[in-house]
């Protein structure tokens, strides 16, 4: 079974500054995906960024980037130039990838407990 741990229940940052959210996971799988989702008060779970475990290059999406350390099973999210709209709960999530021989369909996401990020003006 997989577990995902987010050790920072709450974080705050000043607008325009940079913040890093931590995530560690435990798995015996070699092929998997990692995700960061944000959930604002509206409850809509929105995909922020995705990382394939076989890729060594860290994923980036505009102001969002990750530091993926496979050996250490660490997957942190860096938000640059923080904006007020970034205020939300951020969840780290793990998903096992299906076998390469058969393109299996989606699998369950295992989420961490979340980090509440507040961006202050």
């Amino acid at each position: 079974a997989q577990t995902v741990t987010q050790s920072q229940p709450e974080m705050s940052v000043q607008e325009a500054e940079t913040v890093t959210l931590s995530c560690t996971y435990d798995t015996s799988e070699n092929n998997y995906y990692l995700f960061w989702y944000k959930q604002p008060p509206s409850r809509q779970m929105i995909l922020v960024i995705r990382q394939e475990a076989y890729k060594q290059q860290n994923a980036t999406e505009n102001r969002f980037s990750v530091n993926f350390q496979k050996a250490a099973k660490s997957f942190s999210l860096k938000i640059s130039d923080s904006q007020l709209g970034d205020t939300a709960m951020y969840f780290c999530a793990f998903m096992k990838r299906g076998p390469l021989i058969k393109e299996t369909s989606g699998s369950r996401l295992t989420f961490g407990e979340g980090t509440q990020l507040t961006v202050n003006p």
Partner: protein
Amino acid sequence: EAGVVQSPRYKIIEKKQPVAFWCNPISGHNTLYWYRQNLGQGPELLIRYENEEAVDDSQLPKDRFSAERLKGVDSTLKIQPAELGDSAVYLCASSFGLAQADTQYFGPGTRLTVL
């Protein structure tokens, strides 16, 4: 492109009453998921459908929960009878179902309060 649609957004019922939630996935998505999110926690999978087949329902409390996706498109999740501990947000998500596009897209959720 329309996202995942869920209704109702809020539901308040008394314990022992039945309740149903509806979800319409993104057009063309074969895989549909129901998650439950308790307050202050991350979502947990209840059931996953591949088209109309339930392929992962190991976390679904089958004594009171049921789900269906008869035509492989929209889905209904039912609780009967509801208990106080069922108060949570019920999230529906969908994905294409292919390994290279396994990203799940979520709906806005239904917040259930059981009194």
